[in-house]
């Protein structure tokens, strides 16, 4: 059973410097054909050939879901990360050929909601740009609360306010503006769903506040992609394919498996979807479980690992792959 959909060969059509931290990229198909329509909240995995290192990073689609001429993503430059965002910022130019995955939606709107309450922090705005466009087409009710560091870094603030008017609320940290979450959550009609995308702290704050105010878990949705963390190098053995290799400090386990020529399933590459779950046959040491997928009990048992974001410290790690 394979979930492999054909990948999309694209060419970079446009690179726009949105502000000092964020660049927007537009991709069109190399063969000129239409892109698949997608649902708001979807992401694609962008494949990069970073001077011999293959990087595959997930980015939320922010173009209009019905725009089949091209896809757009926004990338925030991360100076301390492993280099995927730096590669996008420094090396990707119009005319370059790249490869995208099919869109996958791990952050869908609940179509039954009487109202969608969207809460964004920083670059977490991107899935909402597509979702608002889709909800508007369908005549749905929504409200965006967008928190960002400063007017200079407020990507798309003007564009969104202009288009959606009073449905968009913006908060600048520098001006000491803050979302008054308690007041906001008190007055929402029955059937409202909350969606939050942004830094880890914001996601936790929204979940905790909503819970304390009696919101059901199933009415609060969040998406947080983890960038695979850097760490110490470690050795791994693959039992099924009979390969052994070292995972480099700025390489994820999944990337190392792929670099060894072993095919492994994946969808989000950010610890959220569960697709790359792999059996651990032997673990002499400590698995750094960085994912949102495995339960705490599963993490403690050390019998499964999510190679897209998790790492290992110790004497021996053997996987069933």
């Amino acid at each position, binding site marked *: 059973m394979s979930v492999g959909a054909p990948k999309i060969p694209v060419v970079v059509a446009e690179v726009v410097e949105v502000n000092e931290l964020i660049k927007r990229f537009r991709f069109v198909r190399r063969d000129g054909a239409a892109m698949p329509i997608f649902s708001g909240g979807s992401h694609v995995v962008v494949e990069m050939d970073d001077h011999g290192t293959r990087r595959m990073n997930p980015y939320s689609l922010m173009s209009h879901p019905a725009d089949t001429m091209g896809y757009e993503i926004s990338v925030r430059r991360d100076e301390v990360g492993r280099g995927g965002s730096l590669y996008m910022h420094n090396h990707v130019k119009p005319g370059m050929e790249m490869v995208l995955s099919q869109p996958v939606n791990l952050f869908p709107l609940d179509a039954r909601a009487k109202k969608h309450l969207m809460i964004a922090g920083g670059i977490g705005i991107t899935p909402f740009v597509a979702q608002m466009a889709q909800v508007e087409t369908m005549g749905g009710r929504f409200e965006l609360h967008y928190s960002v560091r400063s007017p200079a870094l407020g990507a798309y603030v003007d564009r969104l306010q202009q288009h959606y008017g009073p449905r968009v609320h913006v908060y600048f940290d520098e001006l000491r503006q803050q979302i008054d979450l308690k007041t906001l959550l008190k007055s*929402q009609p*029955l059937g409202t769903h909350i969606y939050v995308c942004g830094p880890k702290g914001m996601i936790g704050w929204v979940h905790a506040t909503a819970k304390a105010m*009696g919101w059901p878990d199933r009415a609060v949705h969040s998406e947080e992609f983890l960038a695979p963390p850097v760490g110490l190098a470690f050795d791994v053995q693959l039992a099924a394919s009979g390969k052994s290799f070292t995972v480099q400090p700025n390489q994820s386990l999944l990337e190392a498996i792929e670099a060894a020529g072993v095919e492994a399933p994946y969808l989000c590459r950010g610890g959220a979807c569960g697709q790359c779950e792999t059996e651990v046959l032997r673990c002499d040491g400590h698995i750094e479980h960085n994912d949102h997928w495995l339960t705490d009990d599963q993490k403690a048992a050390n019998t499964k690992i999510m190679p897209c974001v998790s790492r290992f410290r110790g004497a021996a790690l053997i996987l069933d792959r």
Partner: protein
Amino acid sequence: MTKTMFEPSITSRPVYGVLSPGVGSAHLFVADGEGAEAVCDLFAKAEAAEMKSASHIIYMPGANGCDRSAALQALGVAQFYRAPSFASAQPRLAKVLADAHMGLQVYAAGTEGLMAQVATAAQAAGLPYEAVQMEHRGSLARRVQCVHCKGVTENVTLDPFVCSHCGLSLFVRDHFSRRIAAFQGVNIDAEDPGLVPASVERFK
């Protein structure tokens, strides 16, 4: 009071818990018959004291005649309403849900048919089904929909039973629809008309 023990069953059949004080801005209780006792047990807990000023209880006596209105009225909640039947309480329930905000906690207690209809109403108003707390008390009589004529027969205790709408003899499956708030009844003598086994009182 212990909660009702049910036979192991298939995955569409609901399971019920024990009502406990929820965190929220308002509390709506709907109960029938012995379900009143589950509500009283909840309010007997210390942490429920401060809920009373934000609580609304809608109650109807059970089909078996059980009427605990007095005990509920004595709780002194902000709003108490005794309805003669669930059908008569439905317009009120719909209005309360339509006016409500997120943060409302919904509790249902009593027979399966009552709880299912409360959960269906809450879901229609936008609350997830799982957000409705339910505790079974009293009769195990079932609410059954005839798959043939679509008529619902209330308080079914016998299996097989005669559909109160079309007159077919139906056996009662454990298959349960949260949308219709009923178990499924299927004609028992479809293949051999007239061959109907004797009814057994399965749901007391």
